[in-house]
């Protein structure tokens, strides 16, 4: 490799510097700080001490971490893998056979929830699930007195809210994918007498399976990182009943001032992201040699 050829790569340097300083350094610092007793204020902030794996051991003796890990799993599985993914696919499928006016109106409604700034979406969801909110008004119309969702069923509320907020992404991915499915193939199946469900499972879904895996990876990563929605709606409460790992890391670090333990929780989340990210990159590489 000559110097001239190396010179050509010079313009990449600003990007590399930014990524090193603001992405790689925080990740490295996170893993380092998770082995210290770094604090937000006081002596532990100025001169953090090395404490070995203490923070990680604490995760398993502490009640809040296992609960939080479980809540995160339920939150991701219910709101992303089931909620956003299935609903997004369903909407996209329905759109292939509905009228254009209906489909563009509904598309706009679904996308609106997604394009709004997250804090606005969070406020709207907060009002909606409030004791006096719209949901209970609608439930009240059929004569049932609705519960205080945010207090009695906080996990259900944030799952529904995140499904509402994020379905647009899956819908757009699946609309693009279904547009690429040759019409002839599904129609030929129709002639063979393949019933709707069979056609879906044996023909359509296998054809868009690449999009399904990509979508699942991306929405899982997005949902792992959801903070604002939960913070505004329930702030992780009541009594940690909706504290996902992202919220727990924030609380430990900034509410209780324990940066060391906070970064340990954050490191677990980063590791999870890395695992999913590695699988995602692998899948894309296999598809495009």
């Amino acid at each position, binding site marked *: 490799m000559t110097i001239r050829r190396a010179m050509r790569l010079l313009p990449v340097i600003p990007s*590399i510097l*930014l990524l090193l300083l603001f992405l790689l350094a925080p990740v490295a610092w996170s893993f380092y700080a998770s082995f210290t007793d770094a604090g937000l204020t006081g002596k532990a902030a100025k001169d953090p001490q090395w404490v070995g794996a203490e923070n990680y051991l604490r995760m398993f003796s502490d009640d809040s971490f296992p609960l939080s890990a479980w809540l995160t799993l339920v939150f991701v599985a219910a709101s992303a893998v089931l909620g956003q993914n299935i609903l997004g696919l369903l909407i996209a499928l329905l759109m292939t056979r509905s009228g254009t006016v209906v489909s563009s109106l509904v598309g706009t409604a679904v996308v609106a929830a997604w394009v709004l700034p997250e804090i606005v979406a969070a406020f709207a969801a907060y009002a909606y699930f409030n004791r006096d909110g719209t949901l209970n008004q609608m439930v009240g119309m059929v004569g049932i007195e609705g519960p205080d969702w945010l207090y009695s069923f906080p996990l259900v509320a944030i799952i529904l809210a995140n499904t509402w907020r994020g379905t647009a992404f899956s819908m757009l991915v699946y609309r693009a994918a279904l547009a690429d499915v040759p019409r002839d193939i599904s129609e030929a199946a129709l002639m063979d007498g393949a019933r709707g469900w069979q056609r879906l499972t044996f023909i359509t879904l296998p054809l868009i399976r690449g999009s399904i895996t990509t979508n699942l990876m991306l929405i899982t990563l997005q949902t792992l990182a959801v903070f604002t929605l939960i913070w505004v709606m329930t702030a992780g409460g009541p009594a940690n009943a909706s504290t996902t790992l992202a919220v727990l890391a924030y609380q430990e670090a900034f509410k209780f001032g324990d940066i060391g333990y906070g970064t340990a929780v954050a490191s677990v989340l980063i590791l999870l992201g890395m695992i999913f990210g590695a699988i995602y990159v692998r899948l894309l590489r296999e598809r495009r040699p």
Partner: protein
Amino acid sequence: MTTRALRAQLRKTSTTSGGSSRSRARLWANIALAVVGVCFVAPLLWLLLAAVDPQAGYQTQVPSSPSIANFAAVLNPELLFRPLANSLWLSAGTAVVNLLAAVLAAYPLSRYQSRFNKPFMYTVLFGTSLPVTAIMVPVYGLFVQLQLLDSMAATIFFMATTTLPMAIWMTKNFMDSVPVELEEAAWMDGASAMAALRTIVLPLMRQGLGVVFIFVFIQAWGNFFVPFILLLSPDKQPAAVSIFSFFGQHGAIAYGQLAAFSILYSVPVLLLYTLVSRGMGNSFALSGAVKG
């Protein structure tokens, strides 16, 4: 009989026999979609109605005496204009830094073959999957160490970096679609690579650059968590944070104003999104981002 003729005949029989069942399927699809649409609109309805209702609560109701009092109440420098100006600075700054770095990086990656390209692009793609929320605790620690806390510029550079992987990936894809022959002519005439980039490539991909700019701008405009952690003084905070701190304290009495503020703050991104999706279609903008 050829397959094509067979297919045509099959299609004919299917339209005659399956005509009514097909239109029935269409009706059910329309009904099902309408139900979904109503469910998605419902939470937003409160926002719209409460904004014009001076007596708004958490209930969705048609205002008894609709007025623009809520909008008038939030339209003041302290509450609305300064936070919005901060949001604009933050988002535009982020988008500019991001686009500059992404264009510079994408050019050699798109134009020169090198063993460095593929590993770099996959590392960048890997970077898109890091949960930004998770690195906020370490970023805070890092900013304290480097004394960058409460700095607008540092926040801009950080936000630009979080969207940089996606921006590089998108920019390179857009750049790949600009034919290289035009530049080769410019090189023959003695133009440098940077001159060719500026005068030939960028003008030809300005639509793509617009998509990347708006994509980054929308993300920065709506970002709450990053400025919430990194910007401390109220006079630097963008609308996302000021709305949270103001209504976190006064929300219990000012639902209508909260809704009015939310709408005013959301309008710019709604317009920008419409611009992108109208201009080139959802699937196009998204395929640049997702399909890679």
